[in-house]
């Protein structure tokens, strides 16, 4: 159980990256959803002991994280958003190196752990290759392999699926799903499907604030009967946007199709649809923008 209380961080350029964030994250996958620049990475980095908050508390299973960084690091697996590699070093060598840094100093143990993870991430065949030759998906799988070294109790993966093709994304999410229920896994992403597909719990964050947190299903339930859809002509879009709370616009066969939030039933060609997490997300973002 990771608990974050009243966490704040303002950068020297005035950006309030973490704004009074309080979150309770139980074991299992936890989705942290937010647009680019919402402060997700700042929050992740703070939890991963790489950055000092201005104020607030973080506790992990009763451990004061900010005071005992070293102890948290022993339980932590972290895959940062912008994650690089040494292009000429092979996956196996680098993983071994990381394993030592994680504290797996005993050779046989380390070998077993590295081999297991390489197989689990399906990199076994490519383990001797330089990481520079890896595709984006392989690199991300390598990233999760290193994050899982030493069986961490807290796994943080920051925007891992950005830029992956659907296949690779699936493969990656499968990996995450395998990690198990006994650890805290925080998945930060700006892709709603990642959360929908995987996470029993989630939070939405924008401009450093938590907009909503809880089970995705509960959030979706909150919108039941209030999301309406209509196909319109391109020229009408601005007009609709001014008159309704347009949640999203997407092109279907070249014509805009809009999702609109409305407490009251809408006619005029609008059809009521089943809400999904995306609708929740966009509604929250709109609300946040309005604030």
């Amino acid at each position: 159980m990771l608990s974050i209380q009243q966490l704040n961080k303002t950068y020297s350029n005035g950006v309030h990256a973490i704004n009074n964030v309080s979150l309770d994250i139980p074991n299992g996958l936890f989705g942290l959803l937010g647009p680019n620049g919402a402060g997700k990475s700042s929050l992740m980095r703070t939890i991963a002991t790489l950055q000092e908050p201005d104020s607030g508390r973080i506790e992990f299973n009763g451990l004061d994280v900010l005071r005992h960084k070293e102890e948290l690091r022993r339980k932590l697996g972290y895959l940062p958003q912008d994650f690089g590699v040494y292009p000429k070093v092979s996956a196996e060598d680098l993983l071994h190196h990381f394993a030592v840094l994680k504290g797996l100093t005993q050779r046989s143990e380390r070998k077993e752990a590295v081999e297991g993870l390489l197989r689990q991430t399906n990199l076994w065949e490519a383990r001797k290759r330089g990481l520079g030759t890896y595709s984006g998906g392989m690199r991300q799988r390598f990233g999760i392999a290193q994050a899982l070294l030493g069986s961490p109790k807290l796994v943080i993966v920051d925007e891992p699926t950005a830029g992956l093709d659907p296949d690779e994304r699936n493969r990656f999410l499968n990996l995450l799903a395998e990690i198990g229920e006994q650890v805290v896994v925080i998945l930060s992403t700006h892709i709603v499907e990642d959360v929908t597909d995987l996470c029993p719990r989630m939070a939405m964050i924008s401009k450093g604030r938590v907009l909503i947190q809880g089970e995705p299903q509960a959030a979706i339930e909150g919108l039941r009967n209030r999301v309406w859809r209509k196909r319109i002509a391109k020229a009408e879009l601005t007009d609709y946007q001014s008159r309704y709370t347009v949640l999203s616009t997407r092109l279907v066969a070249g014509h805009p199709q809009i999702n609109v939030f409305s407490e009251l039933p809408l006619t005029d060609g609008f059809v009521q649809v089943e809400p999904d997490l995306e609708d929740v997300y966009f509604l929250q973002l709109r609300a946040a923008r309005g604030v």
Partner: protein
Amino acid sequence: MWFEFFKFDLRYQLRQPLLWVVALALGAMAFGAASSDVIQVGGSIGQINRNAPMVIVRFLGVFTVISMFVVTIFIAGPVLRDAELGMSDMIFATPMRKHDYLLGRFLAGLTACLFIFAMVAMGLMIGPYMPWVEPDRVGPFSLQPFLVGFALFVLPNLLFVGTLLMLLAATTRSMLLVYVGIVAFFVLWIVANTLTRDINNEWLAALIDPFGMQAFGRAVRYFSTADANSLLPPIAGFILANRVLWSAIALALTLATLMLFKPQRAGTGRRLFGKSKKAPVSEVAPTVNIRSIQPTPTAVTPWVQCWSILRFDTKAVLKSVPFLVMLLFAIMNFFASVSQSGRTYGTDTYPVARSMLETLTGTFNFMLIIIVTFFAGELIFKERQAKIADVTDAMPIPNWAPLLAKCGALGAVILAFLSVGVLSGIIYQLIRGGAPIEVDVYIKGSLVGALPFVLSGLWALSLQIFTNNKFIGYLLMILFMVAQIVLSTMHFDHNLYTPASLPPLPYSDMNGYGHFWKGWSWFLLYWSLFTGGLMILAQAFWVRGLSQEWKTRVRLAQHRLIGSSGIALILCALGFMGTGVWIFYNTNILNSYRAGDVAMDRTAQYEKLYRQYKGAPHPKITAVNANVDIFPAERRVLIRGHYILQNKTTQPLDRLIMQVNEQVETTWDALPAHEVVVDDADFGFKIIKLNQALAPGDKLDLNFKVNITSRGFTNSGAADSVNLNGTFFNNATYFPRFGYNAGAELQQRTERRKRGLGEPERMAKLEDEPARAHSVMSSEADWVDFETTVSTSADQIAMAPGYLQRTWEENGRRYFHYKMDRPMMNFYAYLSARWEVKKSDWNGIPIEVYYDKKHPYNVDRMIESTKKSLDYYTREFTPYQHRQVRILEFPAYASFAQSFANTIPYSEGIGFIADLRNKDDVDYVFYITAHEMAHQWWGHQVIGAGVQGSTLLMESLSQYAAMMVMEKEYGREKMRRFLRYELDRYLSGRGGEEIAEQPLYRVEAQQYIHYRKGSLVFYRLRDEIGEVPLNRALKRYLQDKGFQEPPFTTSKELLEYIRAEAPADKQDLITDLFEKIVFYDNRVTEATAKQRDDGQWDVTFKLHLSKMEADGKGVESPRVYDEPVELAVFARGPSGKEEDEMVLWTEKRLISKDERVLTVTVKDKPFEVGVDPYNKMIDRVARDNRKPISFE
């Protein structure tokens, strides 16, 4: 279109901090080189103006060479950049034309490089106007040399290097291959350098050098000071040919690049090693059940982690391209230089481990300063550059572990680098053979060599950590290096405050590291403690995760320093201060330390106070008897001496002017009743007035005690004369002397001027008759009786001039009683060492060589030379005045041999390790030994007065005598080679003249004149008037002037003897040779031959002959060519080599101005024509005296 690329790229380049760092660094280097002698770029400036046109052009040229690696970054980099950044597809998909692309990029890179050189030029422009530069070394400002330098070197060289790199980058698309290209390029350059050692390869060497520096060097080689200050070499000959050739090559490379560059192929370049493997993609990820393995941290875990990072980082550095390139460059530099180092007259030395290490220090190890600076930045920013820092920083490792690992990695890199150096040394030893591979010497030497770089490396690391910005870190490191240099130019030269500086630690085969390691180790400890503290601070400032503002970092650092690291920091600081105090006590209290300028002030003060006593009439020493006890292990000497002084003047004398070495304790026992007039303990200068004056002819006994102790260690670590093995000092060092010591006066004009002293006076004028009262050797004695008892430890032999009367052991020490049987010069030495002894004899006279057991190589040559010398000198000159000859080896802290009466100390650095296995080489061991033997006549029989020309009598005549012995042994052909080196050294020695060049008969102890020109003059004189008459003159001179009492003889008197033996038509020549500075320019400009009907050959050739006279400053005026010159036509034997040549015709002819085209008839097919073909005349360019014949 190309302009778009150009604009875009130039903007990109100018925004790169690297460009600015490089430009500022090179600019600072140029500034330093132009304003001081400490930074030397391409050799020292010498005595010419700091902004002499030649100097500026040479600097610019040399900077194009050293900026090679930089050019790679700015010219080859852009071509590869697109591929590296993954931009290439985007760019090559646009409808651009490839030559626009290439041209734009290339010109942008070139402009960036020109920007760097603008900074260099700026540094050169303002450097000479700094306040510390002597104003008389600065000429009027002129823009012309800068323009010429840019047009002649900077632009063509950048073009050439740039196009070469473009070609490599565009075709290989591999930075590694580009670097390999640069290395290959350096090979070319070094080959050119190596070839010029063999003087016959001039054209090839001048052309093969892509930078044109060789050609430039040839063109200005024999410039006099006056030439160099005002002229630039004409753009013709070597220079023009070279520049045209390489510009054409640059053009060809450009064309090749345009043709070979294929934008479509971007990124598909072949891999260098192995095939690129395709990733097998398995469709379904297998589900693997893995056991959960959790780390169990223990106390050793951080150490294992540290070790792992160390290994990982070290491996990465060792495999990285820049490291390999620098290593390769260093290896090549070593192999290119090692065969040259220690070479004398073209003869190599044995590749002993000591000289391998010395060569490594000069040619290989220095690359480490670049390596540690560069890789300190790379290592600290390694994770962040690879964007892996967030991962590693979140790992459970304490802060100190990665820092310690990176320090270790840097150390490991240094050791790996030096190990390759040692391996190169051993390989060279194996190739050459003949010298033992002393692994222990290598190991010690490498560790000693590594430690200063380890310190610098740690400083570089900590600077990187503190600044947390790679480029600022580099910049500060450059400042750190500049500070080390600038501090010492400003005479702040104590190692206590010069960052991370250690005193030198000289190694000698005889004495090992001697006692020097002691001071060195203390300084090492001192700076290690400082560096340790720095590292603890760095650890506190270590950045983990997101980098923070400085304020936060300081707060964090304070927090981190609470506890054990704070205590460690305090301990380091205390240790640092403690060792500092201890060092200060040793260097400044037990020993004396004076900064360079303070020492000069002191010397000036001495001159101002006591010069008034120069030449004051004084009783002279007539007898010396001394008990000298040498304690090598304690480095202590106790002298109990006895002088007899005699009033040789016609006046009663009541004053004694006593000069003692103020560094040691000298006491006089029972001086006669006197009053003290001056007692200046600071200078060791004392004048007493005797109550009872010494009547003419009366004698006075003086007893003294000198206690020489070595306490602690000194700052300079300079070589000492009392050593654990290999003590060597002469009487001038420690024995009390009398009269003002004029030898200590400052010689540099500018330093004198600064201190209000007049013009320097190296020697009294030749016409100064009163000065003839003293010999050049000593003003305090003429000839002395000498007797001494010297003792040393039981394992050593102690040596002094004289014949061994008795030797015995007493109280575990060895005693030797030596006594000279006849008066000798007041010049004697004491030596003590563990020697091997080889004995021989010549007509009953024992010859003994005392040498170190590691150096038996040339002992027999020394004995042979001694015998041959005794043969020649006793036959041609006068009898040998002694009954023994002893040659004694001393440590290589100095490289000379010196002749005392029947006793010749000879440095291990010369001769003892000369490699004479190749019979074609000049046997300079034979020559030096013959020269030192000749001093037993020239110096110990005849001694000149202390006026100009006195070293002609000593050194030039010894050169002549030695050349005759050598010629009898090795023949004329060898002499010609020997003399070519002498000519070269004379001509280049002129360039270093500080005051004025003198004609030979007025030489003021100028080595390039009395040795080098002396050889040339006497060899020619011998040729012109014949050996028999010349030797007759010398014999008569020796008979008349030998063992003479004052007034002493002069060079003028010698010339009278020579003139008396010379025919009338040689008198003018003698004037030119001895009394003037004359140069010749002899050339054969055309030579053709045609076969006649009768089978003979008509050879027609055209001559260029000129003769010039120079003044002391090198300003030349033409002279009428008024002497006959030797002409010859040569044929070559079947081998076609020079050794095989035959003279078809030769004649000495006076050639008038209008008959410079000559035709002669010879019987056989000729090969070449020569004017002064054996280079007997002093001619700046010796090579053009001969020309191969072309046939009609």
